[in-house]
């Protein structure tokens, strides 16, 4: 009996990892589609700038930021100072500073993996992690890590494919990047259904449209984030009251 349980324990960890990977894969398919297509586009652009698949692999491995890597391709043609590049990076990626706030407790429990999880918080991984739950019999930490790791693999793979075989892709991929927009719409709808209060979702849409009208399409992210955080803080009492009421009602249910 004891021997048997030891053997099961030894294999238990392995089974848990396998279970987490199996549960994570279907959840990551939308990101697989999106990342392969935009990753390929990036690889192709980078190749045209004179950087082969090793460079694409390396950049996707250490930077791992979709929009930023596209913008960065222009830096490699020269003439842009390193300070300017640093400032551009801050401006383009500043929104990521908010993403960790939603996962403070969960990632802090993950030991050393916490820093990889923080690193992996792209728009797509953040969105996906916000919207999915580990199945009841799957370890949540392993599940989250599997999702994050698979997503980055798709991105790295896509950019390598793009730089090696991009010119061989024969069908018209125009519009394929819409997969990313579609992913955000799907998650938006799911969250609309599960969140007790719709004010934050409406604040997100409204503030960004306002920022778009004021600042224009090229520089809308920073004003949008500032407006969103300000509006959320102003609406805090209202949102918290509404949420608390609903939780009260649920508690009183038989």
């Amino acid at each position, binding site marked *: 009996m004891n021997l048997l349980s030891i053997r099961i324990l030894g294999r238990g960890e392995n089974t848990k990892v396998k279970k987490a990977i199996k549960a994570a894969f279907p959840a990551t398919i939308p990101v697989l589609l999106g990342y392969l297509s935009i990753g390929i586009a990036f690889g192709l652009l980078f190749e045209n700038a004179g950087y082969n698949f090793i460079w694409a692999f390396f950049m996707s491995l250490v*930077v791992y*930021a979709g929009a930023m890597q596209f913008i960065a391709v222009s830096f*490699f043609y020269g003439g842009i100072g390193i300070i300017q590049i640093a400032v551009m990076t801050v401006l383009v990626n500043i929104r990521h500073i908010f993403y960790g706030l939603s996962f*403070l407790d969960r990632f802090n429990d993950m030991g050393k993996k916490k820093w990889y999880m*923080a690193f992996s918080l792209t728009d797509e991984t953040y969105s996906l992690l916000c919207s999915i739950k580990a199945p009841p019999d799957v370890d949540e930490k392993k599940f989250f890590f599997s999702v994050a790791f698979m997503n980055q693999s798709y991105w790295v793979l896509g950019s390598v494919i793009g730089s090696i075989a991009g010119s061989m892709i024969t069908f018209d991929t125009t519009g394929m990047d*819409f997969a990313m927009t579609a992913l955000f*719409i799907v998650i938006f709808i799911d969250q609309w259904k599960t969140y007790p209060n719709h004010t934050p979702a409406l604040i*997100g849409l409204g503030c960004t449209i306002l920022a778009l009208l004021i600042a224009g399409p090229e520089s809308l992210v920073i004003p949008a984030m500032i407006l969103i955080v300000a509006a959320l803080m102003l609406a805090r009492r209202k949102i918290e009251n509404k949420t608390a009421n609903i939780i009260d009602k649920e508690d009183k249910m038989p």
Partner: protein
Amino acid sequence: MSLSFSESLLIIVVIAVITFALRAAPFVLFGGTGTTPKLITYLGNTLPPAVMGMLIIYCLRNVSILSSPFGLPELVGVAAVALLHLWRKNNLISILGGTVIYMVMVQLVFA
């Protein structure tokens, strides 16, 4: 390559370090479990739906509704994703279906 090896490497490293610093900042500032200020917890809970709304608009930011095709491909694409999702409640069907419909719109219908 118009830049040298080390110049190219420097660009990648600078972008990588800044991007990671931004993503890791909340964990450096609020490292321990349970020590997070209430306002930060509140923002952490309410930001996901707001950010999703922002990202949708961000993806559509270059769509012009004043000139041809007046954002119609995007409107059809967004509507297709939303309707498919409300109907079948399956992420993959909604995303694949919506993307294919959008690709048909931009490549064939409004080409």
